[in-house]
């Protein structure tokens, strides 16, 4: 790109004149790239800092006024890397949250180790010859470590528990918080009374295990989100803005404001919603509405961001988000669908709602029972607290996150970026899958359909001519080029290109332009184009092709007992052949966003759980309304934000992997919960009988935690299908 690009909205400048910018970089594949990029950028005059994060593929650059963001991006391009600046406010706060969890984990780990050191001395002393003074001394030191450590490291649980109680609900953090506070409180009282047992170690160890699970869970999701963000960023949304002096400047679309004028060349994607000021063209709005037929545009017509411009240049006045009716509609439907969805309660919280009252009631009954048989009040309270500590849901609270971490990692390798934490458990319940057609079942780009008896030389020639054309359809042909572009090719707008090849005129374009007739055997849905070289004529169809493994994936999904349907915004004539090819019986066509939601609601009314897979802007409300949703990485930005997970690559296999992975994960989650319950069934009677000492509690707690974690690791074991799935889905998606 020789043009200067205005990156100013991505740059922050400090008082000392040092500017900073963060870039997503594509093409980093080995360790040496780090040194190559960093030294390459540092060599630019004025650059004071360049640091590449190899895990997230982000480059942080700082420079003095002598340099410019443009120079940085250009140097990266010279080095062979594609890069695009990047704004990540949400990610900055996520990173801060991850650091906070890690800090809490560090504090809890330190405290747990030191208290355990003291506790083991006390336990062995209790059965041999420890003096009461030494024991009290050890207990007080434990208290000194445990109380501040719990106050700090327990914050993630205490806050979440308070939030839940304030909204009048229960989550897993409520019993955890109660257990920790009670264990610590009772231990302080016991220490003051110079008793044998204190539970400081149990309380802190509980926090440590839970924080470890929580941190890993959060970090796994943060990483996939960062990679998804890179892919979105690298799609490099640029637009030609016409400045006050009438000169077009290339700017990132985020820099566009209402009433800016932008120029959209033939074959370019429209960068922002707007109104056509001048120019005449047709736009392919398949990313917006799913409709594959181009829509003709005239002055005053409304266009949407993401539409693909046809063969005429357009000048567009950018409108603010609220002015275009379609986007408005989508937004309104989206809000409604989201409000309806928030009723879902996570598996762990559902368990907690039943679990907490039972546990607390058991503790109370145990205390009353001991009082009734004549025990002292002190002894009865001790029993009750022991019950609470032993039932503290360490295994229970680890059961779900541990599976989520391993299953998310496995799906990541299969090309699926999981966005929502509870997606796996929701996906496992699905019994109906609804696909959008355009861009979801079909590939986002057009494919060429050449008659089987066509002359390969003629197709190759068509490809060479197409290299010089900017028409969107030409891209599908250009891939078949048999050589470099032909010199001196004038483009006749609306007709095609022509050139002299081997002394004979060659033409590529519309049927009329090439003097060809429409053959009868071509499907009526295809766009057609013709190529003529002298007397030889060939008519080719250009249509959206199915994803390469669509047929297999749909068959496999059906084999898993799922009901497959299509809901498309495209015409009946375009939807029916796809449904036939895939063997899908129920296919709705020509649906507006509201009608898609209505169709989903009807399915929900039948008691079904629906997985919606879609990519268009028109699918966004339907994705939000569905029980769970997936979107291809090529989809519209709003749609991807709504999807519970995004899949990469040209294949549909990640959808299948997601269904399989979620079923395995849900099974393991249930197993883990069963293990946790089993542990309680054994441990609670012991606690009620008064047989639980701190040593027993510590062993039971770590034993059950390790058991559920090891069981969760089984979710990481990839199946054979995952192994053969896309080797480099991320690269494919960006290209």
């Amino acid at each position: 790109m020789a043009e200067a690009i205005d990156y100013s909205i991505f740059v922050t400048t400090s008082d000392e004149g040092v500017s900073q910018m963060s870039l997503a970089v594509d093409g980093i594949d080995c360790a040496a790239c780090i040194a190559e990029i960093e030294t390459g950028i540092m060599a630019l005059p004025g650059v004071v800092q360049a640091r590449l994060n190899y895990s997230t593929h982000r480059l942080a650059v700082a420079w003095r006024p002598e340099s410019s963001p443009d120079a940085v991006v250009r140097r990266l391009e010279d080095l062979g890397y594609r890069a695009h600046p990047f704004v990540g406010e949400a990610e900055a706060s996520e990173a801060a949250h991850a650091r906070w969890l890690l800090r809490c984990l560090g504090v809890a780990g330190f405290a747990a180790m030191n208290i355990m050191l003291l506790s083991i001395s006390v336990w062995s002393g209790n059965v041999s010859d420890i003096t009461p003074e030494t024991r009290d001394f050890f207990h007080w030191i434990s208290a000194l470590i445990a109380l501040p450590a719990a106050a700090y490291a327990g914050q993630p649980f205490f806050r979440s528990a308070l939030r839940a109680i304030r909204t009048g609900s229960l989550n897993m953090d409520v019993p955890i918080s109660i257990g920790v506070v009670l264990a610590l409180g009772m231990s302080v009282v016991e220490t003051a009374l110079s008793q044998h047992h204190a539970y400081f170690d149990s309380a802190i160890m509980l926090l440590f295990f839970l924080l470890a699970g929580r941190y890993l869970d959060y970090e796994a999701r943060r990483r996939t989100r960062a990679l998804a963000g890179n892919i979105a960023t690298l799609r490099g949304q640029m637009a030609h803005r016409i400045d006050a002096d009438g000169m077009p400047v290339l700017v990132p679309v985020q820099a566009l404001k209402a009433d800016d004028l932008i120029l959209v060349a033939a074959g370019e994607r429209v960068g922002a919603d707007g109104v056509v000021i001048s120019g005449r063209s047709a736009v392919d709005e398949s990313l917006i509405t799913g409709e594959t037929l181009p829509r003709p545009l005239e002055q005053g017509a409304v266009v949407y961001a993401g539409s693909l411009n046809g063969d005429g240049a357009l000048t567009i006045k950018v409108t603010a988000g609220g002015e275009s009716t379609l986007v408005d509609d989508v937004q309104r439907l989206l809000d409604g669908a989201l409000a309806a969805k928030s009723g879902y309660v996570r598996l762990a919280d559902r368990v907690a709602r039943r679990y907490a009252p039972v546990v607390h009631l058991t503790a109370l009954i145990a205390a009353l029972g001991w009082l009734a048989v004549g025990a002292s009040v002190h002894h009865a309270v001790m029993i009750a607290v022991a019950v609470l500590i032993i039932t503290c849901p360490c295994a229970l609270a680890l059961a779900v996150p541990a599976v989520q971490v391993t299953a998310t990692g496995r799906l990541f390798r299969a090309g699926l970026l999981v966005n929502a934490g509870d997606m796996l458990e929701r996906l496992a319940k699905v019994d109906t899958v609804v696909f959008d057609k355009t861009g979801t079942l079909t590939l986002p780009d057009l494919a060429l359909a050449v008659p089987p008896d066509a002359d390969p030389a003629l197709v190759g020639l068509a490809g060479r001519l197409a290299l010089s054309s900017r028409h969107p359809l030409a891209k599908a042909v250009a891939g078949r080029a048999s050589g470099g572009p032909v010199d001196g090719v004038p483009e006749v707008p609306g007709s095609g290109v022509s050139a002299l090849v081997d002394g004979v005129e060659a033409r590529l374009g519309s049927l009329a332009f090439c003097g060809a007739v429409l053959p009868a055997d071509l499907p009526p849905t295809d766009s057609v184009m013709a190529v003529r070289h002298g007397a030889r004529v060939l008519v080719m169809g250009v249509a959206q092709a199915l994803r390469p493994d669509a047929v297999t994936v749909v068959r496999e999904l059906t084999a898993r007992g799922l009901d497959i349907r299509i809901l498309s915004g495209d015409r009946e004539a375009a939807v029916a052949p796809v449904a036939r090819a895939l063997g899908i019986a129920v296919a709705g066509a020509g649906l507006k966003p509201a009608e898609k939601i209505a169709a989903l609601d009807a399915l929900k009314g039948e008691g079904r759980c629906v997985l919606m897979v879609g990519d268009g802007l028109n699918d966004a409300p339907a994705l939000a309304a569905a029980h769970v949703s997936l979107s291809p990485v090529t989809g519209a930005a709003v749609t991807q934000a709504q999807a519970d997970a995004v899949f990469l690559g040209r294949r549909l296999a990640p959808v299948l992997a997601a269904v399989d992975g979620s079923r395995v994960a849900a099974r393991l989650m249930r197993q883990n919960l069963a293990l946790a319950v089993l542990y309680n069934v054994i441990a609670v009677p012991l606690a009620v009988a008064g047989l639980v000492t701190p040593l027993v509690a510590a062993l039971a707690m770590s034993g059950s935690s390790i058991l559920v974690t090891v069981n969760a690791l089984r979710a990481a074991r990839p199946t054979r299908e995952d192994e053969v799935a896309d080797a480099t889905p991320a690269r494919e998606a960006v290209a």
Partner: protein
Amino acid sequence: MNVLVYLVPLALMLGGLGLVAFLWSLKSGQYEDLEGAAVRVLSDDDLPETPSDGRAADRSRERVK
């Protein structure tokens, strides 16, 4: 047993030193890029002939591959 009076605080202090070291490493961003740290040891940027352009980096790239 009097030995405990100073040995236990000493042990805690050593443990606390470890905690402080962890918090410092966290604050200085050492957990931001775990994979990068693992592969950065392979680069030769500490050699005397500090590369001032891309050529030296290209050499190291070949060597690593």
